[in-house]
């Protein structure tokens, strides 16, 4: 019987011999929880609620906020083409980069799961880009690779192909960001690899006995058995991709250019808050982002019942 049940059966009132020690236990528990609770309230919940309040104001950081009601939200919908542009760019970025990361990392995890020699080395090597992450240094390196005088164009020149400025052209700039995100597939791959190890081998053996080939095994056993991990990586990837900032900031010199082609949502939010000093509008944008991510995550959870299979 659980503790919860025991307490439910206990008669209420101070006379019960267990009551005082329990209250003392509670107090001690709260004492130990206090640092975390203080952090949660002071650093997370407090600023969250404050930003919600600020989203209904005009606030330029240096003057007191003034109440403007829904003006910031109305402006987003009706009066700010750059906001819509940032939304389009971000959705495109998420739509391309999240599936790309999932497919590439799953493919590599499948390869690495086949018991290759030197597996640990490969695993380490593939994970290395994820350690570097979306850092400033990496974004600077990206400029060196995809710039007009970058490494890629030098390589293309070897095969007599005239390159272009990949980060300086509106048609290609966003894809360099996608590539930078895809390059960090290591963490997703490791999670897939762990998931693959959990699939019972006897399922494959039984399928093999029944004459199922590898492709059929992948579709009928691996993918369904791995679906909780795919779901997990999809949700994490979505949330992360919607918030990408550093790479876009560094590669576009903070402008979101060329011609707003790298104006990701988080970058535009930053520009509004810290360049235009329109912190009220930036707060409203942040809340719209929260709602968007929540809705998408919710939709992913709703869809999960149709394609995510739990073994137990």
């Amino acid at each position, binding site marked *: 019987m659980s503790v919860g049940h025991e307490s439910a059966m206990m008669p209420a009132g101070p006379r019960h011999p267990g009551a005082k020690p329990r209250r003392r236990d509670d107090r001690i528990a709260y004492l130990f929880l206090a640092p975390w609770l203080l952090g949660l309230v002071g650093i997370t919940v407090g600023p969250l609620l404050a930003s919600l309040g600020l989203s209904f104001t*005009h606030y*330029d*950081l*240096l*003057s007191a906020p003034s109440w403007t009601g829904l003006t910031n939200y109305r402006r987003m919908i009706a*009066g700010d*083409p*750059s906001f819509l542009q940032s939304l389009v760019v971000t959705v495109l970025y998420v739509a391309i980069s999240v599936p790309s990361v999932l497919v590439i990392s799953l493919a590599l995890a499948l390869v690495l799961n086949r018991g290759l020699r030197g597996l640990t080395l490969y695993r380490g090597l593939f994970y290395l880009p994820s350690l570097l992450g979306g850092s400033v240094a990496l974004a600077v390196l990206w*400029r060196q690779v995809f*710039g*007009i005088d970058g490494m890629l164009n030098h390589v293309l020149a070897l095969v007599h192909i005239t390159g*272009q*400025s990949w*980060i*300086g*052209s*509106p048609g290609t700039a966003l894809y360099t960001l996608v590539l930078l995100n895809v390059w960090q597939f290591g963490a997703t791959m490791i999670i897939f690899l762990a998931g693959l190890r959990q699939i019972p081998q006897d399922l494959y053996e039984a399928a093999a006995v029944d004459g199922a080939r590898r492709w059929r095994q992948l579709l009928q056993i691996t993918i369904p058995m791995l679906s909780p991990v795919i779901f997990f990586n999809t949700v994490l990837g979505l949330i992360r991709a919607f918030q990408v900032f550093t790479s876009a900031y560094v590669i*576009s*010199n*903070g*402008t*979101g*250019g*060329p*011609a*707003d082609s790298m104006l990701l949502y988080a970058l535009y939010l930053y*520009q509004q808050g*810290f*360049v*235009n*000093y*329109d912190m009220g509008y930036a707060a409203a944008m942040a809340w719209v982002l929260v709602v968007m991510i929540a809705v998408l995550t919710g939709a992913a959870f709703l869809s999960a019942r149709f394609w995510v299979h739990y073994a137990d």
Partner: protein
Amino acid sequence: MDRSISTDVSRPAVRTVRSRRDFLALARQGVIMLGASGGLTALLQEVQGEQSGYAAPAPGKGPVEGEIGFSWWGTGERSRKTQAVMALFQQKFPKAKLDGQPVGDFNTYWEKLTVEAAAHNLPDVPQMQVRYLTVYDTRQALRPLDDLVQSGAIDVSGIPKVIVDSGRGRDGKLYMVPTGSATNNWMYNATMAEKAGLAPLPADMTWDQLQQWLLAAKDRLPSGVYASDLRGSDDSLLWAWVASHGQPVFTKSGQLGFPEQLMVQYWNWWETLRKAGATVTAAMMQEEPSDNQQGYLTLGRAMFDERPANQLAAIQAPLTASGKGTLKLAAFPRRPSGNGQVLVNNGLSIAANCTNVSTAAAWINFFTNDPDGAKAYASDNGAVTGTKLLDAQIAEAGAALPATKDYLQFIRGVITGKPTIVDFPANYSAAVQALARNYSNVAFGKASVESAVKAFFSETNAAIR
């Protein structure tokens, strides 16, 4: 029970606290006595002060001691020079300590400063620039300095009035002591131009003459070298265009003060050059690092550009090292009806939250007037504003430092030539951002000049409230 407090003077004033009421009565009396004795002490001190001739020190004339925070923008050479001046100050005032807070990147500096100002946590002495002064002075983030000037704590008598006044806020009060006079201007590779057989740039050229000069240059330059960088998104240049056409850049309320059609002409001026291949491509413009020393002019890939005059020596150095020519400065057009040369002064302010005003004032005064300090700083962020100090630096630069001499003489010429003073609005950076965004749309063919100009006006005027 006897709860009264004994008033028998024959007995020692020992009271027995027997109840809560006794305790409260005692506490009340204690507080009154404490207050009375405190007030008496203060009164005595006041009387003693008056009798001994004591008076509060004049503003900023207190002891120069304790630590103050000082922030500036710039990397490498500028930071080294700044720290040299700081060391000289601390030698002179050994009880004072400067807590240097440099920020390398110019834009990042202002972002950091704004966040600090929002938290009422500005460094005691932040470096300031006229383009951003209004952001802070209109929000009471800076301390007016007029009383410090009147008391003599900060001496601005050696600085021309036009420069001192550039540090005033909209309320007429002085919020920044200008320490470096700076302008943006044309900078071009004279050696390249000469080799290309181009006529020297006329001293008093028009925008049309300049455009023709650049168009003529494009076919005469070596392969891979462009006649000009592409600066349609540069704020200083747009203001130069507007000022030279006799229009105000901003209105008193901070909105754009010139007609849209004037800006249409401006971007068309650039587009004519870009489409003719006289400038670097739009993609190259996008890729160009903001650091002057990595720009196309510095790398010898563009013959002509618009850069701050104080960067002349820094940009010249790599060109000299690679044997790619000698740079010259040229002023923005003064025609058809105004001086395009806008003065963008840098200076030092005192934060409203500064509690050590005497030391802050002493530091500003030292930075502005000390000959050794000025020599160590070498006009790195604008020509030193004191006339005598500027003359001394020009004489000292002589033939040994031709780029420095050219730059300082150029600035002196700008100052004496009645430069345009722009009343920059708060939230000025929104205009800079809107300008870059919309010209990028034009240069990449995503928007017509007319629609981009409309968008620029709409975004800027909406942001500057």
